[in-house]
């Protein structure tokens, strides 16, 4: 699929797909030819139909009876890669900085684009730095277990926080975050 974005369809940044696939490979969730196929023809600077990411997600969901903790770990691993080997360090200086980066859905908007009703948002709704509490509201098409991992991984990567907990059991779209 082409590098060019089409406003009429939901597209995702190549680096995100690469990051997701690489996380699966690092965690030995997929291996061998199957792993190679995941990232075949994906250029990091290209834009690809969201379905491409769904395909990789399906590989995990279909392989695991209980895929929730696995997808959470994939999300964490993905953000560690983003922070340590991608642009993360430049954008986020500490764990709370990752939350700030989600203000107005800016972090999410840099990797997904398309029709507004399909794109949704991943936005910081509340932040109490002193009290160590925050809330992110997500209406994205991403898997919510993976998004929980993304938040944990993104906040963990700078290694300045002692405690991070993210819950979304009650409402999968609302991530209640505790940190210290």
């Amino acid at each position, binding site marked *: 699929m082409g590098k060019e974005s089409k406003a009429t369809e939901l597209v995702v940044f190549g680096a995100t797909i690469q990051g997701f696939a690489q996380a699966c490979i690092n965690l030995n969730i997929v291996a061998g030819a199957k792993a190679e196929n995941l990232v075949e023809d994906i250029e990091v600077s290209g834009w690809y139909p969201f379905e491409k990411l769904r395909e990789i997600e399906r590989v995990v969901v279909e*392989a*695991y*009876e*209980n*895929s*929730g*903790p*696995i997808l*959470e*770990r994939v999300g964490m691993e993905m953000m560690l890669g983003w922070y340590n080997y991608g642009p993360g360090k430049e954008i986020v200086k500490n764990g709370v900085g990752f939350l700030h980066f989600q203000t107005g859905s800016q972090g999410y908007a840099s990797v997904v684009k398309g029709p507004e009703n399909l794109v949704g948002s991943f936005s910081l709704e509340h932040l109490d730095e002193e009290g160590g509490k925050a809330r992110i509201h997500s209406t994205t098409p991403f898997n919510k277990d993976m998004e929980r991992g993304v938040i*944990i991984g993104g906040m963990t990567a700078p290694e300045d*926080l*002692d*405690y*991070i*907990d993210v819950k979304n059991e009650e409402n999968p779209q609302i991530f209640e975050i505790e940190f*210290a």
Partner: protein
Amino acid sequence: MSLEELLESGTVPAKGDITEEELVKLFRKFRGLQKKQERDQAFWAATNENLKIAYEKLDEKERELARAYAIIQDDLSVASKIQGALLPELSKKMASELELAVYHKQLAEVGGDYYDFFNTHSGSYAIGVFDISGHGVSAALVMTYLKAQFMTILENLDSPKEIVEWVNNTSYDFLKTVKKYATVNFIVMNTTALRYVSGGGFGLLLSGKSSTVFEKRDAFLGLRRRPFHEYELPFKKGDLLVMYTDGIVEAQNGKGEDYSVQRLNNLIIKNAKKPAKDILDLCVEDYTKFRNKDSDDITLLILRKKV
């Protein structure tokens, strides 16, 4: 001492060693580790569960493979019996005139070495020894095809050259299609002589003190559409005829040395006066001692003219 230094040293802190602020930090770190452990536990539990499922699937696949293997083994066992039944026995008349000993061993259940006895349309005896390229089922199928071809044409022809040429011409396209070929050693004998065609096989005729190795100027069946050459040799009472495929002579010992045509022919020549069966046993014994392992189908046919 800072909290980090205390943790690094492994010393249990005494009262007053850590500040209240450090105690709070320690508490948070502990909770952080607890959360991390919970997440790790969930991840490994899911991974373990997946591993269990994978093992169960693997078990099932193994059982499927075992079932499939058993079916294949049964089929091969039947195929082996069929192929064995297709190998000939001397007719009573032939047995009264020829003393025969044959060693025939396939590398797998079925194989590509093949020998046969025929009667030509004029009543002469014909013997063929063939080695079809490759091993296993495909070679065995080609063997049955060639047997049918020879049986068909022997009702009409008498000359080994004409017989082999006819089989080669009619089989050429088929053998090309299935990417197979076959060595051929074919003789027709009458009361005083034998005529032979040799395309790749090995033949030796011992008459009195003289020995004649078969000329091998022709191509294998299925390789070229060219005329074959026919040779005639006297074949009288007491003469010993030996025909074989390359299975014995190309077998290697542990040092990578071939058993060789020379070794086999010398052994036969040295023991030529013995009964055919004894010569055969000596050859097999010598080969078995020499070779590292069987690496090809084997056919060794020894016959003496009794009348």
